[in-house]
């Protein structure tokens, strides 16, 4: 609105520009505050050690992939693959189990719905790290200890409440009329879901999958407790850093940050909305 306001007096003009300048200043401060640590981490992780230890070189000019390579060889490469596998297992299980529940919440009225939904909402805030230690005891019995499936299953219970709430909100966003029209014109309810609702919900569900991926990818406590050899990336790095050089730590930060940048780049808009839905 203020853009279109007709500025009449000198005072108004000055006030308007002061406001714009303060606004711009604050935005720049916020952006720099968040972005600078990312940028500096990437630069320092790749910096030549000689330059890093030179107090007068703030922004390095000479770079090397040596430390990142070293970390990858130490096991970060395998750990990254493990992380991806665990995240995919988590997405698979949590959607397989959570999508029907999300559909039920979005499309049906039934007795106990409100309390069940409230239960899911509450569960989302429950500290899931609690299950890690007892789960390990169970996993030893089941032969799931130190397996990626085991971690994936544990991550599924962490992701499930979120997946249910997100998918229910996404499915509720697809008009029920579309589904009913498909049923009138010859499909069963399941057929209508797969032929009409699912394609329409796909962009949202993809974003939800990315969201789930990020949750699993970033989780460290459960993963660290449930694994000894087959570690995910954060668990691997958590375990490694205690006795390693600064450069290995920097390289660890670098490897973990890069996917985040990619995620925000491809799904930023959806992610803001997801967090809005699930955290409310």
């Amino acid at each position, binding site marked *: 609105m203020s853009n279109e306001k007709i500025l009449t007096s000198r005072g108004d003009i000055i006030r308007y520009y002061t406001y714009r300048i303060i606004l711009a200043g604050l935005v720049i401060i916020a952006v720099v505050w968040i972005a600078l640590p990312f940028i*500096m981490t990437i630069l320092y992780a790749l910096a030549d050690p000689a330059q890093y230890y030179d107090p*007068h070189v703030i922004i390095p000019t000479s770079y090397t992939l040596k430390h990142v390579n070293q970390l990858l060889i130490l096991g970060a490469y395998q750990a990254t693959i493990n992380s991806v596998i665990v995240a995919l297992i988590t997405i698979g299980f949590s959607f397989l189990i959570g999508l029907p529940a999300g559909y039920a919440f979005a499309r049906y009225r039934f007795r106990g719905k409100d309390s069940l939904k409230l239960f*899911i909402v509450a569960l989302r805030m*429950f500290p899931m790290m609690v*299950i890690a230690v007892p789960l390990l005891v169970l996993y030893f019995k089941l032969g799931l200890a130190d397996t990626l499936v085991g971690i994936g299953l544990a991550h599924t219970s962490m992701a499930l409440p979120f997946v249910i709430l997100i998918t229910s909100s996404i499915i509720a966003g697809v008009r029920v009329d579309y589904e009913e029209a498909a049923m009138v014109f010859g499909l069963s309810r399941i057929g209508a879901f797969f032929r009409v609702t699912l394609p329409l919900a796909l962009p949202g569900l993809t974003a939800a999958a990315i969201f789930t991926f990020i949750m699993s990818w970033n989780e460290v406590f459960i993963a660290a407790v449930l694994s000894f050899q087959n570690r995910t990336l954060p668990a691997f790095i*958590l375990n490694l850093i205690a006795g390693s050089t600064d450069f290995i730590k920097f390289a660890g930060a670098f490897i*973990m940050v890069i996917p985040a940048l990619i995620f925000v780049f491809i799904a930023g808009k959806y992610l803001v909305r997801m967090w809005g839905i699930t*955290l409310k």
Partner: protein
Amino acid sequence: MTRKSGESIPLSIKISNYVPYLLLLPTLAYMLFFIGYPLVEGVALAFFDEQGHFTWANVNYLLYDPGSLFWDALKYTILLAAVIIPIQVSVAFGLALLFNAKFPGKNLALYTVILPLTISDVAAGLIWYVMLGQYGFFNKLLMDLGVISHPIIFFGIKNMEFLAIVMTEVWRATAIVFVIIFAGLQMISHEYYEAAEVFGATTWQRFRYIIFPLLLPSLQAALIIRTLFAFQIFGVVWTLAGRDIPVLAGEAYYAQTTLLRPGVAALYALIIAALSVSVGAIYIKFFKAKYLEAGM
């Protein structure tokens, strides 16, 4: 006039009444197995020995063993929450108001601000380890500008580590609070402010009487979520300070992986759970009226 209708309803229709429950069944079964059972098993681990006899051994270890940092862990967990949360909520609130204005490049700025949401707490800890190290960007910049003559040492000194953790957590998790408040702010129709503007409300009055009350539910939600997550603080502390600054989750991890005492680890986990549940309950009771009115 017709037969009793109950008899003529086909079985398939009767079953169809249970469809939503069938759809929810896998979820409930999964949660029972992966959350319910571990909780019970956790109690068993913490309070029973291997022969199944009740034991105070783990509790005694926690309270009286010289190696136990339980009281410190409890103190630091609560202290960190008490310091970090007010800063996060105020910064996030300011950011949300800032992003409610229109300016060029807004989306890019928005994506940047939420970037920390996509990284793990371990990564966040390491990023600030890079920033705050003796040869880190922070020290180099201040020395180059002539603000300081010797680098500020953060790591290895308890109070400075505490400060580093606070800085990292504010940087990392303010985005979560921001997203909640921002989502709430965007749901407030612009017509509300415009109506207030038409009736001659000043900027402050619009904030005080329109935006703030409508935003209160979001603020409360953010506060609950942030507080509960704060009790689970782990990765950032572990990477920046190790056990110099003990926290509950860190002690659980230490007991499990280094001491190899799952009973103690399980006890810590139960304490975190109990703390979360009771604080959550207090918050909800405290906020209940307005929280429910807002339909959340």
